[in-house]
């Protein structure tokens, strides 16, 4: 049985020192998983994400990580990630090793890992200082005499955690909206945890096989966690809580206010239900504020053959 609580899934699959990818480009960022990792006190993680976003800012502030592998360090549309800056610039709460790529470089690392290739080629980095500070960025000559190309090595997380709208009990997972690099990050991983807004009957999945992004085949645990991406979002289920992204810019400016926030919102609750209860208490209309209207896809006919 793959269905697990978040507590069980994190306890079983995420260990100190592991390489972890919690992916999702602006959308589908699984804060519920991050908070549970913080609560369980994991240490020395190598955190991988194209955009560390608030999720890794919080995990790094909580002291979970020894290293960050990334391509864009910012609070999108707002400003810097203060906790990660503190770690990089001042070693607070502990020094943070960084390994840095461009977006395409990170995408290529996941693809290389997912495809079991020794490297993945991309036309990037030429003439820049990026390879000078990251010796993993190399160049290879084409055997066809048509140029040189940058390459990056595979990235194979111990665990990849993906948030999505729905999965069946076997972990066949469907997503719509921004698909980011989740499929590649999942296939690259040794273990995969899928966190979903809804667990649906297999028949729903089977009604649209092209919509299935992650096959149950590679999924180790399925966690049912509605609103598990807040303050990020799940397309069609709830909006991004832009207010919180702005608020975090204030909260995270000082170490003390950051730790106070973690105490209250992460350590101070038992689980994601506790977090949601606090959110709703603070702002009773929150889910109404974040509820999108309806815009349904036109169904397509796969046909019955036989």
């Amino acid at each position, binding site marked *: 049985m793959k269905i697990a609580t978040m507590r069980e899934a994190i306890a079983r699959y995420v260990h100190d020192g592991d390489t972890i990818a919690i992916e999702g480009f602006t959308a589908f960022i699984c804060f519920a998983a991050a908070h549970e990792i913080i609560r369980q006190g994991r240490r020395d993680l190598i955190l991988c994400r194209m955009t560390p976003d608030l999720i890794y800012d919080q995990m790094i502030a909580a002291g979970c990580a020894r290293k960050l592998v990334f*391509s864009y360090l910012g609070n999108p*549309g707002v400003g*810097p990630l203060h906790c990660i800056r503190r770690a990089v610039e001042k070693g607070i709460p502990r020094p943070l090793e960084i390994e840095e790529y461009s977006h*395409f470089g990170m*995408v290529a690392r996941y693809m290389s890992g997912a495809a079991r290739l020794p490297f993945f080629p991309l*036309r990037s980095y*030429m003439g820049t200082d990026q390879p000078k500070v990251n010796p993993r960025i190399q160049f290879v000559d084409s055997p066809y005499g048509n140029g040189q190309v940058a390459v990056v090595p595979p990235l194979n997380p111990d665990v990849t955690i993906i948030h999505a709208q729905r999965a069946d009990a076997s972990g066949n997972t469907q997503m719509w909206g921004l698909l980011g690099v989740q499929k590649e990050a999942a296939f690259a991983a040794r273990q995969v945890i899928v966190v979903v807004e809804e667990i649906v009957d297999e028949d729903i999945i089977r009604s649209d096989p092209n919509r299935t992004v992650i096959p149950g085949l590679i999924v180790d645990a399925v966690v049912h966690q509605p609103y598990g991406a807040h303050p990020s979002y799940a397309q069609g289920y709830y909006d991004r809580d832009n207010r919180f992204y702005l608020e975090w810019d204030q909260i995270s400016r000082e170490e003390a206010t950051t730790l106070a926030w973690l105490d209250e919102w992460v350590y101070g609750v038992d689980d994601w239900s506790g977090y949601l209860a606090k959110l709703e208490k603070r702002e009773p209309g929150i889910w109404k504020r974040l509820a999108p209207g309806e*815009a349904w896809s036109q169904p397509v006919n796969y046909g019955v053959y036989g």
Partner: protein
Amino acid sequence: MTNYTPSEIMITSSARALAGERVVFVGVGLPNIACNLAQRTVAPDLELVYESGVFGARPARLPLSIGDPTLISRATLACPMPDLFMYYLQGGRIEVAFLGVAQIDRFGNINTTVIGDYQRPKVRLPGSGGACEIAIHAKKVFIITHLARRTFVEQLHFCTSPGHLSGQPGERAAWDMPGTGPQLVVTDKAIFHFDQETGEMVLFSIHPGVTVEEVQAEVSWPLKIAAELQITEPPTDEELRIIREELDPGGMYL
């Protein structure tokens, strides 16, 4: 019309530079508004591509980030990241892209990584994101930034994204870079082009009321000035109406 903000003249100047363009890679903020303005004025067929993997967006509100859900609903296409970087950007489908900068040198090379030493940074900046690939592959690069001496520097602390490199003709081609590199820098005080021969930034026009001296004061190297220096055409009433009433009625970016 003289009653406009610095942001507004940056937007209208950028929008006009998109005349006739077909596919633009757009970020949020000023470039987003500039591209939407161009669609409504000089480039009705302009296709907006977001780095998050969205085409033909019809946002029902002004997006805070390039991953805003309003960009996806009713878009014509939303694709995964590998498609975006492999087939659209590296595939050569992007004609113009906007980039921001923390530092830029006279050849349009860009730093968005770090102020100070990389290993012991004074200020840790966001890093590349997709900027390095955009700078290499987009046919043309437009830069929008505020004019400031700490931004327009003699020597980058770190080269994140290539411009015209050392300015040697053919240097980008020798590195196999398909795009032509930076073509335009739009600031709150002036507009710069790049010399086709030397790859060096050239002051092309100054905004109304700004002097060449004021511009030079914010640039760390001795500026080349175009033989026929222009005064930037200010925003028209219609452009301002579109910006204020349609594109950013909340005044979020202005």
